[in-house]
């Protein structure tokens, strides 16, 4: 659980995106695309889920990429090479269903781009034609452009502020592409509003869309039910039933509300830490 490598991938005045490679041979051996870990930075810390972006079975490491947002991600961002994490457990959740579907369209937003990468790579290896759309707030927060270029047949990039490539949202590009071409599957990961908008667009085209949900979790092994979300009218646990679900069936309103339960405490903790 030692940090082997630390790299700042993106930085603006108010936030940073950081990559950590963590030594964890058992997890590196078992990890599959779409799975995540639960980690604690220190004994007093929270347990938070983070997607496994990559693994190196030879070195026995897993790669985590996260944006500093709440207290835990800031503490994590403060770790240096050779520091130890208090706890890392995984790989958790169901892996992404990887098949040769044909033409697959992938949409990643913000730090979700990091989570998209292992899926894109595996989908490409399975023989799919990959069209990828990446969206970032601004150029300095755009992640893994080269990595995704190598595993995509087409790559489209948008920035909210127009500082790089096309100005606007991923969904504008998505709608254009869906009008022009037929796809077998869509996959989206990023902030909830983005995934939700992606689903609204793909629904009009009757295109099955898989999303990776970022519900709040505690143990992340099915024990607590904190991460429950309604999918197709049924209660599901994101940690053991997900984290991926069919986006058109997700109760997004419920998810947004449940994810806001501790906003006040989070603000309080962050202020104390400053």
């Amino acid at each position, binding site marked *: *659980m030692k940090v082997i490598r630390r790299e700042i991938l993106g930085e603006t005045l108010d936030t940073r995106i950081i990559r950590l490679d963590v030594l964890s041979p*058992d*997890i590196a051996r*078992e990890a599959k695309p779409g799975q995540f870990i639960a980690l*604690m930075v220190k004994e*007093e*810390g*929270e*347990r938070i889920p983070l997607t496994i972006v990559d693994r190196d079975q030879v070195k026995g490491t897993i790669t985590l990429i996260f944006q500093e947002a709440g*207290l*835990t991600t800031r503490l994590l961002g403060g770790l240096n090479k050779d520091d130890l994490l*208090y*706890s*890392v*457990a*995984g*790989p*958790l959740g169901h892996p992404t269903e990887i098949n040769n579907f044909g033409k697959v369209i992938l949409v990643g937003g913000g730090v979700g781009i990091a989570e998209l990468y292992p899926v894109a790579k595996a989908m490409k290896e399975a023989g799919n034609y990959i069209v990828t759309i990446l969206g970032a707030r601004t150029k300095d927060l755009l992640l893994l452009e080269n990595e995704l270029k190598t595993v995509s047949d087409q790559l489209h990039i948008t920035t909210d502020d127009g500082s790089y490539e096309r100005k606007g949202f991923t969904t504008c590009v998505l709608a254009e592409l869906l009008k022009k071409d037929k796809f077998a599957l869509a996959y989206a990961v990023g902030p909830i509003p983005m995934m939700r908008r992606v689903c609204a667009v793909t629904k009009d085209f009757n295109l099955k869309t898989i999303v990776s949900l970022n519900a709040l979790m*505690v*143990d992340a*092994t*099915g*024990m*607590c*039910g*904190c991460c*429950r*979300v*309604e999918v197709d009218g049924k*209660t599901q*646990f994101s940690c*053991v039933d997900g984290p991926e679900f069919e986006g058109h069936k997700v*109760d997004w*309103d*419920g998810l947004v*509300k*449940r994810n*806001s*339960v*501790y906003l006040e*405490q*989070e603000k*309080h*903790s962050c202020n*104390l830490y400053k």
Partner: protein
Amino acid sequence: MRKEPIEVKEREAKDRISGFEEVVLGYSEKEALGEASRCIQCKNPICISGCPVGIDIKKFIYEITQKKYDQAYFTIREKNNFPAICGRICPAEYQCRKACVFTKKDSPFASKEAINIHFLERFIGDYGMKNNLSVPLARCTGGKYIKVAVVGSGPAGLCCSGELGRRGIKVTVFEGLHKLGGVLRYGIPPFRLPRDILDFEIDYLKKLGVEFMPNCIVGKTKTLAGLFKEGFKEIFLGLGAGIPSFLGIKGENLCNVYSANEFLTRVNLMQAYSFPRFHTPVNIGRHVVVIGGGNTAMDAARVALRLQKMKGLTPDTTILYRRSEVEMPARRLEIEHAKEEGINFKLLVKPEEFYGDEKGFVQRLRSLECKLGEPDDSGRRRPVPVEGSDFDIKCDLAIIAIGLKANQILTSVTPELKVDKYLDVVVNPDTMETSLKGVFAGGDIVGGEGTVIEAMGMAKKASEAMLEYCSM
């Protein structure tokens, strides 16, 4: 002439609800001697038949009367590695005390006159701790070097590793969470089981040579096949029940509707009561309802009441249960403690639907009144909702404590492991061996939710079979 039972000292209700200090203070030596002297040393001590691990109750109580506390400690330890834990949390009134000759015939649980066996066990357990008697009875000595894996560090896993460890087997315990103890850590609050006692009993296993691997989820981090490949000769599964059940009613996913597991895990394991020093938050409401009638419901309600008090709110926590008090599966002592602390009990109530505000936070619970009908499969009278009796209960935080289902993390990736229709692991009841050769199981993953000591009973049985298996 029959002597009156010696009551145990407890922290005053008004003091104890301001924190998480232990409620029951235990017997002094004098009190223990007084209580032990009430035991009539039956020729046929049927109390022993009520103990899932078969402690020689008659003998250890006799040893107390002779002030041979060391011997009493070893007498218990022969059958139970964790007297300080079991003396605190065993539902003795359904087990040894119910079997005690002083319990009135046909009583659903122990009579008040039954010997307070659990308090005596606790006295001896604590005596052993204070006097450092928990030196290993035997250490891994000579013989064949055999490696055994234990999955889960809850009551079953701890018991199994203790039994095997003291017979010289090299045991490694794999635990999914970052801390050891399973439900003893995340479920049972410190005011019932102080953490230093849990840590002490786990340390004893470490002294025995048992190795612990936290953060390892068998089924995810490692597979059973992987463990065998690593050289483990046998595996014991003490996975626990795991998945919390919900009511399946509308509004159940509103904000501030918790499973008891989540609420208790946040508080007990993640120490949310020390927020923000500990970073995991938990919410508390002005009007809390807890749904259920078991020990977990009592624990959740008593934790909620303490959090209300600690936050400066007027305590207002209500337990809703669909049957009446006598059918409640909780320990009688916990029910009494909950009442003393000011928990309200609303019995014969069936929840129908939660309603929330525009932000999605729960506000009230619509419920129906119930009557008791004919007994059901469990032998308890079935609650029958009264039509048209619906009424609203104000609640801004709800905790659902209606039981657990099997966690499938391991069984779903191990199809060779036979499960029943409840997805519990199927075992040979004589040996606790599963459908997989060399894999044994016990605790809640076998036959659903039970008590800590029942889990230990199963683990003990399994450990005997495992010893036999590895000597073959």
